[in-house]
């Protein structure tokens, strides 16, 4: 047993630590004369100074050591703490040194985060993910280690410590626009998923009840899923503008070739397949003997549906909604191209202007949004799973 313990190591955390160590020779901050120029990449030494470089390098070496020697509880916890420290120190130093670097420059100059910081963050969160798995028995430590780094980052943003980083500067300059596009994005994906559910769940139920309906429903849903999203948005422009041209009254409802209406229609069509498929599987996977027993004991059709089919298929149907929601958060990005707005607007704006920080300003919140939606929906699925099916 002692021999086994000495040789247990955490391969995922090792990978994370190596990624972290590899980030050290990269550029950490970029100093640019203005927001669009290429700028010069600064090494860690030039960015954070000797002390900063020493601290971060040392901490990464500690992480590698901890993940190499043992998976005991205290190993995992201290590894998690050190990883969060790396993440926090990196951003504290980035904020401080951005201000230091800009002090000697003209007012148009910007400091951006460079590859080194992104990759160190990536390495830290790969290892944190592994720690989270290792602490499966303690929810408190799990959450502390998963969220404390991000919470401190949020505080740093809140108090203005990071205001001299270019991404944050972009945010401050376009805050009103950001809020508006964030709201647009949320409206786009929630309304399309709600509409997708209202359409997809009955379709899925219909497919289980009627053999004639089953094939065409899945045929269409599958085809829709394979059309690239941009193409689907494009394909809708012609028929919808024809429609609004023929019936001008529709224009008051926002039905036009471009804008929110076609975007939502396309997103609804995309969300259909996971919702229809999971509803169908949720209902057909039920043991026919259970339905037979229900009917045989004297339940009527609606009692069988409410008391048996609904509670037993709910987890899978909601799982389909989860897939559809996460997918819709991503797909809604493209909606910016047909004038529906959303966080994609920043991405395409940034690409157009070759301003990477604007791209990041759009991309990071989309990732965050997808994670939040995913976590929330997982919770909903868990709550909706009947207790008898959780006990194994």
């Amino acid at each position, binding site marked *: 047993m002692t021999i086994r313990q000495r040789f247990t190591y955490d391969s995922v955390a090792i990978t994370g630590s190596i990624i972290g160590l590899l980030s050290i020779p990269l550029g950490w901050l970029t100093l640019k004369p203005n927001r669009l120029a290429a700028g010069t990449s600064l090494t860690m030494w030039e960015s954070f100074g000797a002390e900063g470089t020493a601290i971060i390098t040392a901490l990464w070496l500690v992480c590698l050591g901890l993940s190499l020697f043992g998976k005991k509880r205290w190993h995992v916890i201290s590894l998690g703490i050190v990883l969060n420290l790396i993440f926090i120190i990196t951003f504290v130093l980035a904020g401080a040194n951005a201000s230091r670097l800009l002090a000697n420059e003209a007012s148009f100059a910007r400091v951006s985060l460079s590859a080194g910081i992104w990759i160190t963050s990536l390495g830290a969160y790969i290892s944190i993910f592994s720690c989270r798995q290792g602490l499966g028995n303690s929810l408190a430590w799990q959450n502390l280690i998963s969220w404390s780094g991000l919470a401190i980052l949020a505080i740093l943003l809140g108090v203005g410590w990071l205001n001299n980083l270019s991404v944050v500067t972009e945010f401050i300059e376009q805050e009103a626009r950001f809020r508006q596009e964030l709201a647009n994005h949320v409206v786009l994906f929630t309304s399309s998923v709600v509409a997708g559910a209202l359409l997809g769940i009955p379709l899925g139920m219909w497919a289980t009840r009627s053999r004639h309906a089953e094939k065409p429903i899945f045929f269409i849903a599958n085809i829709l899923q394979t059309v690239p999203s941009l193409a689907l948005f494009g394909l809708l422009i012609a028929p919808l503008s024809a429609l609004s041209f023929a019936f001008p009254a529709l224009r008051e409802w926002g039905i036009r070739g471009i804008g929110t209406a076609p975007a939502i229609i396309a997103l609804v069509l995309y969300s259909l397949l996971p919702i229809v498929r999971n509803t169908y599987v949720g209902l057909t996977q039920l043991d026919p003997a259970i339905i037979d027993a229900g009917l045989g004991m*004297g339940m009527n059709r609606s009692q069988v549906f409410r008391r048996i089919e609904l509670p037993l298929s709910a987890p899978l149907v909601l799982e389909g909604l989860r897939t559809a929601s996460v997918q819709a958060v991503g797909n809604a990005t493209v909606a910016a191209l047909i004038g529906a707005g959303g966080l994609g607007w920043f991405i395409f704006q940034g690409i157009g202007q070759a301003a990477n920080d604007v791209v990041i300003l759009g991309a990071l919140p989309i990732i965050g949004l997808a994670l939040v939606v995913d976590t929330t929906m997982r919770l909903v699925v868990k709550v909706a799973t009947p207790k*008898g*099916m959780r*006990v194994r």
Partner: protein
Amino acid sequence: MIRLEHVTKKYGDVIAVNDFSLEVSRGEVCVLIGPSGCGKTTTLRMINRLIEPTSGRIFVNGDDISQIKPERLRQSIGYAIQSVGLFPHMTVAANIAVVPELLGWRKERIARRTEELLRLVGLNPKEYAGKYVSQLSGGEAQRIGVARALAADPPLLLMDEPFGAVDPLTRQRLQTQFVRIQQELKKTIILVTHDLDEAIRMADRIAIMQAGRLVQYDTPEVILSKPANKFVLDFVGTDRALKRLSRIGIGKFVKPAPSVKADASIREVMLAIGGCHSVWVLDEDDRPIGWIDAASIHKEATVGELIVRGDTDEISVVNYATLRDALSRMLGLGFKCIPVVDERKRFIGEITLGDVEAATVEVEENHA
């Protein structure tokens, strides 16, 4: 109690049940049996209107069931099926409570009934009421299935291979338990099976079906001794005499036999054995653990040396077993007699090959 009159069920051109008539009296167990596809399950499902007959009429208690609302009819008939069909999202108690709830019973009454039923099928209510289906063994699930069918105390029970999905040993235990429950409750039961031994063990009357038709409908004894035609003869097989033995419990054939404790002295053994050929040796809990042959006894030997040891479960039969079980056990062991134990494996006597032989002759004479 139940009467089927010229019932026919067609699926397109396929005739599943063909001009089928049958009457089952109150308190009887009628077993529908036949090769798969003979229409036995279809017949059963027509009685609670899960399937509607193409023609013919079915009466329950003299009422034509086509005039009764299907849901009402089904709530008044117990229904147990092979795959049990317990609802996995409900506790055992909630599963049993389904029909009483549909009938609008009060909560206290349902709780009392649930407890009563769990006791009846031999499960501890405190332990099992709150369990989920995924926490039950196959045998437990089938017992709950039977309890659920009995929940609203229906006079009529329909069972489709209710013990089909468990291993043969558990099945035999469940059958024995069910026969005992039935002796107490006296329900009218229609049971579908393809297992002839199960039919013989449980039925008051057996209905043998072939290709949708009723071939023979009679008591197991008559079916075994006078098969109506070649089909029935082939179906019941060549070991009919042996099968008849499985209708007879060993209870009334058990007689006292000499026994000693394992720690007895040689004198006590000689005293106990009297004129017999052998004596059964029991452990401190009265369980048979071997025997001593009269021929092997001599004054210098110790009791420990003389005991021929065996495992209690292997060398004895339980008192609710059938003559067939006892016979096959004796033949398997090469014994002329075998100890009989009660449910807690305590020695109560023995049964001999001679008794089995006498019983066979008696059965032959009764049905000759």
